[in-house]
C-alpha cells in the first residue's frame, strides 16, 4: 500500500516507522527542513519537504496513486485541509485525520474525512477503563459499520446478577460476544449462561444504543 503521512512530528515519525516495518510504501510530508533532514538521515529518503495542504505538493509526490493519506500535524485545520485536498483533488480512497479538539469529529465526518482519531478521547477512555467502578467503556469503534465494541462490568448491585442471558432484553442490534468472569476463563455466552457479579461482558452495539445496552445488562 502507498501511504502518505502529513506531518513529521513525534506522531508522524513513529507512524512512519511502524508502517515501514509493516512493509508499506510510506512517504512523510513535512514543512520543516530540519525535521526532514533528521528523518532522512535516520530512515532514508522517506521524507519530502513541503506543505501537505498544497495540491501541487501532493501531486509531486504522486498522491493520485496513494491508497491512504494520514494527516497527523498538530493543527486540526491543517489536517482537515490536507484530507480534503487529497480527497477532492487526488481521489485518495481513504483519509485519516488526527484531532486535537474531539468536538471536531462530527464536522470532519461531514466534510468527507473517512476516519478521525482524537488522542484526547483515547486517553480518556484508557483512564476510564482503569477506574474499577466505571460501568462501561468503549473498546473499539468500527466507524464504517457504525458499531462499537463495549466492555460492561456487572457489579454486585446489578439486578441482572443470577439472571440467564436469555432473560435479558437487549436493544436491537446489540449482541453479546464474550463473558469474562472474575475468576476462570472467558467463554462465549449461551442463552442459559447466568450472569455473576464481577463478570465483564464484551458486546457489540451501535453508538446510539450503547447506554440502553449498558442499562439492560446491569439492570440499574
Amino acid at each position: 500500500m502507498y501511504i502518505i503521512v502529513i506531518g513529521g512530528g513525534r506522531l508522524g515519525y513513529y507512524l512512519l516507522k511502524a508502517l515501514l516495518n509493516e512493509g508499506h510504501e510510506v512517504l512523510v510530508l513535512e514543512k520543516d527542513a530540519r525535521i526532514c533532514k533528521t528523518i532522512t538521515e535516520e530512515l532514508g529518503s522517506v521524507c519530502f519537504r513541503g506543505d501537505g495542504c498544497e495540491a501541487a505538493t501532493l501531486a509531486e509526490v504522486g498522491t493520485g496513486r496513494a491508497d491512504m493519506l494520514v494527516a497527523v500535524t498538530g493543527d486540526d485545520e491543517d489536517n482537515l485541509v490536507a484530507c480534503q485536498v487529497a480527497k477532492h483533488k487526488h481521489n485518495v480512497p481513504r483519509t485519516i485525520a488526527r484531532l486535537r479538539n474531539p468536538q471536531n469529529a462530527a464536522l470532519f465526518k461531514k466534510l468527507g474525512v473517512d476516519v478521525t482519531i482524537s488522542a484526547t478521547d483515547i486517553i480518556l477512555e484508557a483512564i476510564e477503563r482503569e477506574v474499577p467502578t466505571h460501568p462501561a467503556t468503549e473498546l473499539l469503534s468500527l466507524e464504517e459499520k457504525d458499531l462499537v465494541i463495549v466492555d460492561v462490568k456487572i457489579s454486585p448491585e446489578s439486578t441482572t446478577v443470577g439472571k440467564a442471558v436469555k432473560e435479558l432484553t437487549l436493544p436491537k442490534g446489540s449482541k453479546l460476544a464474550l463473558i469474562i468472569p472474575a475468576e476462570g476463563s472467558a467463554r462465549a455466552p449461551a442463552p442459559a449462561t447466568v450472569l455473576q457479579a464481577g463478570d465483564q461482558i464484551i458486546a457489540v452495539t451501535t453508538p446510539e444504543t450503547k447506554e440502553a445496552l449498558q442499562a439492560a445488562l446491569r439492570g440499574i
Partner: protein
Amino acid sequence: MKIIIMGCGRVGARLASLLDEDGHEVIVLDNDTYSFRRLPASFGGTALYGNGIDEEALKKAGIEDADMFVALTQGDNRNVMACQICKHIFEVPRVMCRIYDPLREEMYSALGLETLSPTKIFAQLLREKVGESPEKKAPGKKGGKK
C-alpha cells in the same frame, strides 16, 4: 445585517469599521486581543476574544443568528475550516473566505464556498496596470502599450 468577522488584522479591522459605518451589527473575533488596537476609536461594534475554529467561541459571538461570516485570518486553513463550520454546522446564510493560495481557493470554490484569493485579485490588478499606457507620467516617452 449581523456580520461576524474572524481576524482583526489590517483588512479585518478596516472592513469591520466600514461595515459598522454602514450601520451593520459587527462582531470581530480574534484570538489575540492586541489586534483590537487596529479598530478605530469610533468603532461601535463588538470586539470579542476567541478562536474562530472553535464552535463554542462562534456561538458566543452569536453565529446562530448571524447573517454573514467573513474569515480573514492569516491562515488559509483556519479560514477554510471556520467557514465550513459556519456553513455546514451553523448554516449561516452567507459565508466568505479569504484564501491566499490560488489552487486551494479554486478547490474550495468548487466545493461551494464563496472564496476570495487576494493573491489572484492583486496579481490581476497589477497585470492590468502594467498593460495601461503610462500617459500621465511620462508624455512622449516610449513604453507601456505593446
